[in-house]
């Protein structure tokens, strides 16, 4: 009798233990809280209890640190304001003019400080060189991103991009119909790049675009360097750093730049036009990554979810950049049609540099650019 009671009690205890364990584990799967430690290693929103739990955890953190994302860059300003008002999380935006390497330097230099950047938005070369610094994460709309545009484990994924263009003030220079127009005497001292070609991606791709327009191949950028050397000899190339002020006052009325960045000159110069030569449509995308030591891991992941929601993607589209989910959104009809129609026209087949080609271009420029420019 006693033994039977014991067995029954044991059995009940075992069953109870199982039930508690089952309840416990299922509640941790659907728990209303997503603690900081789980957020730090969560690779998807569901791993942290679902998007609602993520929102709660992010709100508890209350802050987000972003870097090198000025409000006028691909219309980030709208995304930042939207995120702040939707979730009440304060975004601190640092180093607005920083380069991708500056972002990485900030991550390594600030380490575990509470002011370190949470998320990064970088060019390809720098992204690939620092994989050990990121935390893998896959946004809810991960499937909409092509495999070639993301890392399979979720360390990085592309965000927006555009095509290299020649932007110009049509009242200061004649209409540009082909690259070699720039060698004409009307362009004396007027043509500039956006940044130094040895360091800035926009400038490197500008030289590469000239290279392609001159009949060169993506593997060898020498024709592009030669073109700019010619431009310099003709006195048409301006070594000045092209800023919105130099464009507006007419010192650099012709600038090689990404089409979505070039478009921003339109607010200072209403007669700003964009030219892309049909045999030289050169495109590039930027990459997103989450800092492994992000001081606000839940907010960082929530920010990514926001950027990759239809709202976030359309924000970038309204900044004249092409969001990475564009094809999927056109199919599903969630794209902002007016913004899509306002994109600069592209009348050729786009070319994207592979990592090897970009690296080779960089090496060539580091060795030859300064000489070509002096």
């Amino acid at each position, binding site marked *: 009798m006693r033994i039977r009671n014991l067995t029954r009690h044991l059995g009940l205890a075992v069953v109870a233990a199982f039930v508690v364990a089952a309840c416990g584990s299922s509640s941790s799967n659907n728990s209303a809280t997503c603690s900081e430690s789980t957020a730090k290693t969560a690779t998807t929103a569901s791993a942290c209890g679902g998007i609602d739990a993520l929102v709660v955890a992010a709100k508890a953190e209350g802050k987000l640190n972003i870097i090198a994302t000025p409000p006028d860059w691909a219309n980030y300003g709208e995304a930042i304001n939207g995120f702040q008002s939707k979730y009440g999380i304060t975004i601190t935006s640092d180093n607005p003019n*920083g*380069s*991708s*390497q*500056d972002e*990485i*330097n900030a991550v390594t230099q600030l380490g575990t400080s509470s002011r370190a950047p949470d998320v990064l938005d*970088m*060019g390809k*070369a*720098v992204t*690939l*060189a620092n994989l050990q610094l990121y935390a893998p994460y896959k946004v809810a709309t991960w499937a909409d991103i092509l495999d070639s545009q993301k890392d399979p484990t979720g360390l990085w994924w592309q965000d927006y991009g555009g095509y290299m263009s020649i932007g110009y003030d049509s009242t200061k220079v004649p209409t540009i119909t082909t690259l070699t127009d720039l060698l004409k005497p009307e362009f004396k*001292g*007027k043509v500039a*790049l956006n*940044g*130094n*070609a*040895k*360091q*800035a*991606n*926009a400038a*490197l791709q500008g030289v590469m675009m000239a290279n392609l327009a001159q009949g060169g191949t993506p593997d060898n950028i020498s024709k592009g360097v030669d073109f700019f050397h010619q431009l310099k000899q003709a*006195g048409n*190339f*301006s*070594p*000045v*750093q092209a*800023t919105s*002020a*130099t464009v507006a*006052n*007419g*010192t650099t009325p012709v600038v090689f730049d990404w089409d979505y960045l070039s478009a921003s000159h339109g607010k200072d110069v209403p007669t700003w036009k964009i030219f892309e030569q049909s045999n030289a449509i050169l495109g590039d995308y930027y990459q997103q990554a989450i800092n492994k030591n992000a001081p606000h891991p839940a907010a960082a992941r929530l920010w990514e979810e926001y950027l990759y929601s239809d709202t976030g993607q359309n924000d970038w589209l309204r900044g004249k950049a092409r969001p990475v989910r564009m094809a999927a959104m056109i199919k599903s009809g969630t794209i902002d049609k007016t913004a899509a129609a306002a994109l600069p026209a592209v009348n050729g087949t786009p070319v994207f540099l592979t990592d090897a080609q*970009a*690296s080779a271009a*960089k090496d060539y420029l*580091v060795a030859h*650019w*300064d*000489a070509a*420019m*002096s």
Partner: protein
Amino acid sequence: MTIAGSPAVSATAGRPMGGRRLPLDWIGTVPFLAYVAVFLFLPTAIVLGGSVFDVNGSLTLINFSHLSRVYIVKATIQTISLSAFTAVVGAILGALLAYAIAVGNPEGLLRRLTLSISGVLAQFGGVTLAFAFIATIGPAGFVYLWLAQHHADIYAGSIWLFELPGLALVYLYFQIPLMVLVFMPALDGIKPQWREATESLGGGTWHYWRYVAGPLLAPAFLGATLLLFANSFSAYATANALINQGQPVISQQINGALSGEVGSFEPGFAKAIAVEMVVIVTLVTVLYSLLQRRTSRWLQ
């Protein structure tokens, strides 16, 4: 009533008890040395020390061998000449301007305003200073356009504003005010009695400057010139705004190796260039102290 005359007084003044002189004297410098040890020596050591490591963390001298790259050598020479030129010209013009201000009313409004403007402009630089000049004598600047209308096209050859001569002119914009501020206290130390004494002895302006004021001002003048040299040598933002392509200035090359988008990140190399810069400024400082000693002897 002479105070300093008594030998007994001057013998006891300033000497601590017990004769343990040297160790106690060091105490006065401890706060300063401790501070710079933490906030200057330590960061400098971190930077300069980093030049002997490669990307994997192993010891190497390869960063120093890279200093022989053609564009580095060229940039070094150009930066030294640019700095020397703007230092000397800035020092002379700045000294003249300081003198023009110093002989005025020491309490006057003019002095207050000019010194305040000098303070502001001495630290003015970068993209905005470059733009200030672009808006004035750039190819779209109103002074240039006015001159061109009157058949004086200053850019007939090439746009020199965007080359080293233009950079030198823009550098003078902050070098001269800096000179005014650091040299003015020396000019304030000139007593009017010296001038009167020289004249009562029959000397003229030439004698006054050559034998009285000159030797007294020479150390401050040379020291200020050295400061101007170092200031110009390490300047970055202004050169980068004006001559973004070609990077003629050595600090631009450092920036290129530490910042950027395309993976041209070479931290060890950047630090090796920093070592080179410290060495150059040290050499110039040694030259300066030799010159100090020579001039003090020569002007005696």
